[in-house]
């Protein structure tokens, strides 16, 4: 009896961990796309998640049908992504990596300030898609919305993979990420590619933000901590590595969920970072990062 209660609890932690992990993974994936194309670490990535969620809340409150509100919210987030690239990243080309980090943090503070004026400073939620009645799986109570988040994440992953490998434009993005110089030589317009990665990243963030809001709530300042977690997830997996980003995000979510459940809920954010530090000490380039070799 005790053992089965234990199993149920662990299953419970796994589900909630994967749900949060899916959000981190999507933010981390957005990071990776942008990083690969432009070597910019975009710490405003979390604001896309916030923008998607908050816009949906307010558009729906303004009387739009929920699906329309969602689509518009994704578009709003994408406009923000494009604007970020056009007005903050493109003019700073060739700047120091630390200067770029500060620029994206400036952008994140700006977007947060904007959200605080356009929206408000309160917490908001969205109605769950299939009700709030938990489904019991193996004894664990799982919110149907968790399954929506996981399914949504899977759809996004498969969609992104197909886009990257099957379409000409996606292949151009991969080519530009691998070797910008060669890509330019074969006629790929690299600045356009970089702009496209900002667009895709903001879409990713907004979609997951909308899906997860019924569970986690949202507010104008929800983006910062998501950006930090996403950054941590990227580094956990190894920077520039898309599967690493997804793996890092899911692991971070699981670590938090188990840490909060088994050790201390106050220190759940700390547990994620302690694990990150531990991994980096053992593998200085992340879980899926290669070995470092100094070339002289």
């Amino acid at each position, binding site marked *: 009896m005790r053992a089965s209660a234990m199993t149920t609890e662990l299953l419970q932690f796994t589900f909630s961990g994967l749900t949060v992990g899916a959000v981190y993974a999507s933010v981390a994936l957005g990071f990776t796309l942008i990083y690969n194309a432009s070597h910019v*670490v975009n710490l405003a990535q979390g604001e896309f998640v916030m923008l998607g969620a908050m816009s949906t809340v307010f558009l729906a409150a303004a009387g739009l049908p929920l699906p329309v509100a969602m689509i518009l919210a994704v578009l709003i987030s994408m406009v923000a992504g494009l604007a970020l690239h056009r007005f*903050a990243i493109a*003019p*700073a080309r060739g*700047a*120091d*990596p*630390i*200067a*770029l*980090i*500060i*620029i994206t*943090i*400036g*952008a*994140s*503070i*700006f*977007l*947060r*300030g*904007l959200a*605080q*004026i356009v929206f408000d400073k309160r917490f908001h939620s969205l109605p769950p898609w299939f009700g709030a009645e938990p489904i019991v799986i193996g004894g664990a109570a799982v919110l149907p919305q968790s399954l929506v988040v996981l399914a949504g994440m899977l759809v996004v992953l498969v969609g992104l993979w197909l886009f990257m490998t099957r379409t000409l434009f996606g292949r151009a993005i991969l080519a530009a990420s691998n070797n910008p110089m060669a890509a330019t030589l074969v006629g790929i317009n690299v600045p356009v590619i970089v702009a496209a990665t900002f667009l895709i990243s903001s879409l990713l963030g907004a979609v997951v933000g909308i899906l997860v809001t019924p569970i986690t709530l949202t507010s104008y300042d929800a983006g*910062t901590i998501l950006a*930090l977690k996403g*950054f*941590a997830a990227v*580094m956990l997996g190894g*920077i520039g590595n898309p599967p690493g980003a997804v793996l890092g995000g899911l692991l971070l979510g699981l670590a938090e969920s188990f840490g909060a459940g088994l050790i201390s809920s*106050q*220190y759940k*954010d*700390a547990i994620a*970072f*302690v694990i*990150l*530090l531990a991994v*980096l*000490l053992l593998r*200085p*380039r*992340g879980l899926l990062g290669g070995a*470092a070799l*100094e070339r*002289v």
Partner: protein
Amino acid sequence: MLNRMLRSRYLPAFLMLAAMLALPYVLPSTYYLRVASMVFVFALAAMGLNLLLGLAGQVSLGHAGFMGVGAYAVAIGPTHLGVPAIPSALAGVALSCLLAYLMGRPILKLKGYYLAVATLGCGLLISMVLTNEAQWTGGPDGMGVPRLVLFDAPVRGVQTWYYVCGVALVIGMVLAINLTFSPTGRALRAIRDSEVAARVVGIDVARQKLFVFVLSAAYAAVAGSLLAFVNGHITPDSTSGFLRSIELITMVVLGGTGAVLGPVAGAAILVILPQALTVFHDYEHMILGLVMMACMIALRQGLVPALTARFRERTA
């Protein structure tokens, strides 16, 4: 005499000292003295960070954590432990150095963004402890800082703290200049420019990085203690939060990593700007974000180096 001063490597410290002595006669009210004290405090922390970033080329996105240790030491010591403020402050600096040593030993091996995220994590850990251990720290709402008592007389007055902070900054500046032009300073700059070349001439890279990391943590802790005394009330976010860390690194980069006066200029901008922006109420954050972006795009090398280059062009 004047000529010697102008050529001296200590010129920035002289300028700073002169400015500090002159300002009270120029500033219209004690409110401005308070703001100036905050500029000095943050300039001191940024100066320590500049030794790490500007001199040794190593990044820390968690430096406010060490500020938090210094700040809470002077609050917790007298309040909970019955230790007088000055020994508490010293203990805070020592603890900050110890933490920097323990954290720095493993993480300073990391490079680039990996070091950035690791230092960020360390800063967050310190901040979380300060937030969660409410019985000691008062939790997210923070705690009051008992007034400093020296020889049975309470140290009070905006003006007194203005001079204390100013003198601390000038001393910090002199020490930083000393370090820059010493064998250790050369070793650190060598590490910044080429780690592998530094190693083959016998520079112990790990040791030097650890040294400068600990030293910069000491600067941050001293600044944190001063911040606590000047403010009289501290919270985890205002002393050790992630945004504080970002503010510190922005001060360094905005002012210019190459110049001793850079952190002072950066601190002046980032402390005075939000004060000036409070008249815009809700638009404060938007404008701060815009200014951060605009400055980093327009002034790549930082304010002070850009200005000195302009000045040299004119005089040449």
